[in-house]
């Protein structure tokens, strides 16, 4: 009689430990550290193990249809909220009070180099934050190429931003 009861108790005890195992997962609390979080930021001066590969990836890739398609998709995710699908800067976030970004179809930005777009994404520009943490170098070149394609479309002066989902 005692053995099965003990067995049940043991199994029940184990069950709990399997659900919450003695390891730190991302986003979990960790009393060991001062900020109480299991995830750590790398200390100052850390060099990534794949730094050389990453540096190689900052080279501008050759232009291709695939690169443009990738740029279009990434532009849609990270830039459209402000710069809008047509590049006019009439996005939804500026409509809610964010400073209006410059029009990609202006003469100044048509004359700007792709390297400039790349640098804006890497370092930020004025009130615009950097996107380097979310857009890897290859995608930055893809987006820059896509902005070029947008600029080549010669949109009419009195255009309006199409609604989302169109």
């Amino acid at each position: 009689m005692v053995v099965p009861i003990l067995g049940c108790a043991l199994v029940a005890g184990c069950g709990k430990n399997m659900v919450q195992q003695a390891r730190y997962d991302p986003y979990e609390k960790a009393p060991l550290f001062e900020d109480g979080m299991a995830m750590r930021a790398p200390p100052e001066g850390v060099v990534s193990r794949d730094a050389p590969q990453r540096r190689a990836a900052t080279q501008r890739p050759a232009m291709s249809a695939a690169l443009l398609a990738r740029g279009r998709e990434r532009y849609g995710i990270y830039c459209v909220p402000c710069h809008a699908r047509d590049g006019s800067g009439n996005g939804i976030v500026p409509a809610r009070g964010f400073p209006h970004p410059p029009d990609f179809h202006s003469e100044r930005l048509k004359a700007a180099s792709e390297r400039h777009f790349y640098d804006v994404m890497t370092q930020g520009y004025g009130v615009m934050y950097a996107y380097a943490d979310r857009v890897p170098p290859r995608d930055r070149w893809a987006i820059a190429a896509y902005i070029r394609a947008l600029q080549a479309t010669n949109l009419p002066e009195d255009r309006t931003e199409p609604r989302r989902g169109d």
Partner: protein
Amino acid sequence: MQIFSPSADTWFRAGLAAFAVLVAALALVGGGYARSEYLTQVGWTRDQQVPFSHKHHVGDLGIDCRYCHTSVETATRAGLPPTHTCMTCHSQVWTGAPMLAPVRKSLATGEPLHWRRVAQLPDYVYFDHSIHVDRGVACVECHGRVDRMPLTWRAKAFEMKFCLDCHRDPAPHLRPPEQVTRMDWSDWSEDRAEAFGMAAMRRFHVEPARLDSCEICHR
């Protein structure tokens, strides 16, 4: 000598009946409990430091999931956004709102925001976002209409059955991988989903027979 009293048979029958009723009741209560929202936590929201609204940011503003959950395509984890991501907009929008005070404090001190998780698996289950996203399993299949959630909740019971139901027959659940973050699929008829799914299964060589072996999720 009489061993059983005249009423013994009646008592015995009544006892049996009572026992049957008890077992049935226990099964009902137990079953109900196992499927209850109390256990599966479906539809529960949790108090958060900042009342972040997907309805507002995704539904109204139309921001893509990947703007904040950046690693969902490349890693096991979708990732929760760091304070920097909130500040790309909130450095200029709603800068004085008391609701956002913890975000500004987090930026100033460098201490990350603590989000209380709502959609989490037990530690003994292995899950990977990237393969699902790559094959075209849309976010909405597992997380529901996030764009309608003022506070985030768990839309589906993350029970083993939920995973297996799809793993044994993924075809009708597959969508074009470039549209995984789309929430509304009401314009897809069942036939269209089935036809697209069959083609996708062939393209990716998905084998349902392999997908329900234990070691895929319990490793």
